[in-house]
């Protein structure tokens, strides 16, 4: 029983990070109908920037701020410079452009910081908390991870649901032409959407960095699991991204704890296929009719 609780706790922590990456992908998918394969590269690059700050003696919080700010910039630049020309074209072309950006970022990081992974300090201790004499697989840092992701989700929800800017962002994503007629600068909104998504991604990068280390290809699995989580939840639903992330995190934790840690990626495949066979558009997809 303790084992089950521990695995669930570890799964929730891991799932929170997956949820953040999934949310980054969902935000971009909703805004521009592009699956952003560069997300893994973008969060890798921002985490490297944060690592540089920590390495040069800066505090953890300064590094986190640098990562988030650089995430905003990278996201906005990527949309404006690379994705804008292929928007409205064949969707696979946009995918290939983001793939190219991912490769480019990976190469750039390797050139600047080298290919050997570096360790990254956690914000708080990673020693597990105890409850009634049993050591739990939940540390203060894990609580911070869950809290940070929850905070960002809440902030995004407020932004999208409660503010005029959020309304414009949603309008630009769902009905760009009508939004444009109403005076919304759709292009600007799309750029902002990408920037916000990259910000969420860069948070995920900094949060997961202590356990995966910082290297040019250390975050590839994050993209795969984040994308899997987004697909499980349904790519159109931010709530689905969060649910998908937590579900996937727990599922992988059980696979790794009860069966074998070698089967984690296979477990992700099995979880995804199971969900998609029951609901081909993810758990939280809105019912869409097909026009005949």
């Amino acid at each position: 029983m303790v084992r089950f609780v521990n695995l669930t706790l570890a799964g929730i922590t891991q799932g929170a990070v997956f949820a953040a990456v999934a949310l980054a992908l969902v935000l971009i998918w909703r805004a521009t109908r592009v699956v952003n394969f560069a997300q893994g590269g973008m969060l890798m690059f921002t985490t490297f920037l944060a690592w540089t700050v920590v390495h040069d003696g800066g505090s953890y919080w300064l590094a986190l701020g640098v990562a988030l700010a650089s995430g905003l910039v990278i996201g906005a630049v990527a949309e404006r410079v690379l994705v804008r020309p292929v928007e409205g074209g064949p969707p696979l072309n946009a995918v290939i452009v983001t793939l190219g950006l991912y490769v480019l970022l990976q190469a750039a990081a390797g050139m600047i910081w080298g290919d050997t992974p570096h360790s990254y300090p956690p914000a708080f201790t990673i020693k597990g908390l105890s409850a009634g004499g049993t050591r739990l697989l939940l540390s203060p840092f894990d609580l911070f991870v869950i809290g940070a992701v929850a905070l960002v989700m809440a902030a995004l929800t407020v932004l999208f649901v409660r503010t005029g800017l959020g309304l414009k962002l949603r309008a630009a994503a769902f009905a760009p032409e009508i939004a444009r007629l109403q005076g919304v600068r759709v292009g600007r909104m799309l750029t902002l959407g990408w920037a916000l998504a990259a910000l969420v991604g860069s948070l995920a990068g900094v949060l997961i960095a202590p356990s995966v280390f910082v290297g040019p290809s250390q975050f590839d699995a994050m993209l795969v699991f984040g994308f899997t989580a987004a697909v499980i939840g349904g790519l159109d639903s931010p709530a689905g991204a969060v649910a998908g992330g937590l579900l996937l995190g727990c599922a992988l934790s059980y696979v790794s704890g009860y069966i074998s840690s070698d089967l984690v990626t296979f477990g992700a495949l099995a979880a995804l296929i199971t969900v998609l066979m029951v609901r081909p558009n993810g758990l939280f997809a809105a019912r869409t009719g097909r026009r005949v």
Partner: protein
Amino acid sequence: MGALRLTLVRHLAGAAAGLVALYVLTTSVGPYRDLQIAQAAYLTCAVAGLTVLTGLGGQISLGHGAFMAVGAYTAALVSAHWGWPLAAMLAAAAVVTALAGVLVGAVAARLQGPYLAGATLAFAVGLPGLANYSHLTGLLGGQNGLTVTPPVPPAALGETFPLERWQAWIACLGAVVTLFLLANLTGGRFGRTLRAGRDDEIAAALCGLRVARLRIAATVVSAACAGLAGGLLAVVATLAAPGAFPLTLSLQLIAAVIIGGLGTLPGAVWGALILVFVPSWASDAASSSGLSHDVASNLPLAIYGLVLIAVTLAFPRGLQGGLRGIGGAARRRLPPSVRRFAPGGGAPGVPATHRGGADEPTTDQASVPDPEGAGGRDDDGGGGAGGRGERLRR
């Protein structure tokens, strides 16, 4: 009937010309280039299969690297345990992978766009991971993989015949045969119905096509090509190991499809050539430039990324589409009497408006122009549906 024979003869002639050209090429270069030609050849098999699935079938797959892994492991296993000869080994690789394709295709036929992309992505990552599972390491060799006995060149070729050239010949023969079969397959009924199912699933179903079955068939064909490619990889690399099938391989294959030109077989060749020769050229350039180790070792990757972005931005329809565009522009300058014999813009290639499949059906329908304005002129009151039916019967 005449047209059929003509097509067949044309494809045969193309295959023969390709073989002669490859013979001349492989015999005139050294072992290192021969090995690269072999790599490009087996990648051509996989990319050609993928371009049929994605370009004509409209089903994206980010998991073809996993199919290649299935093929490579099959080839390694039958050769190690039963000592099958080369041809039987490659055939087994293709057949077993085709069977895997039935399974994947049955799952994939239900899915669309990014959901399919996600499922196949998980497939690409999950399947090679199985090799590391402790209960399977005895069979699959774990991280080190399985070694494959290198093929022995026939004694008739002489004592000093280089192994790499023999491997290149095997791989090139495989690629040419694959391209020949795919060219015939996609030029006929199979390709036509596949395109119909891609462009309008509902209209195709109304015409009596079983779209789900078609898609499964396309996945099977595509998987068989990837399996053959994997088998050839095992022969060329003399190794089948999980490290040879990372996620990047699958992503490179789909990138090659788009760069070459979605749905065109010549485009598949272009894409495979870029996959092999751009990084190799870049690493040659980097190693001779005297840059620091970190920069030099990552320069090929950077150039590869730049090429991906630049080609996609400059040629939205791929290199083959770009070449066709240039050819069309040149032809338009010729006098009309000459132009009459040139294949027109209405040739049944991949329409520029095809959106791959990663989008909603409704926007797709809106973006496909109605050829000949059939919907507007229809008198039977069928409206838009009539127009779409018209397009299918074309």
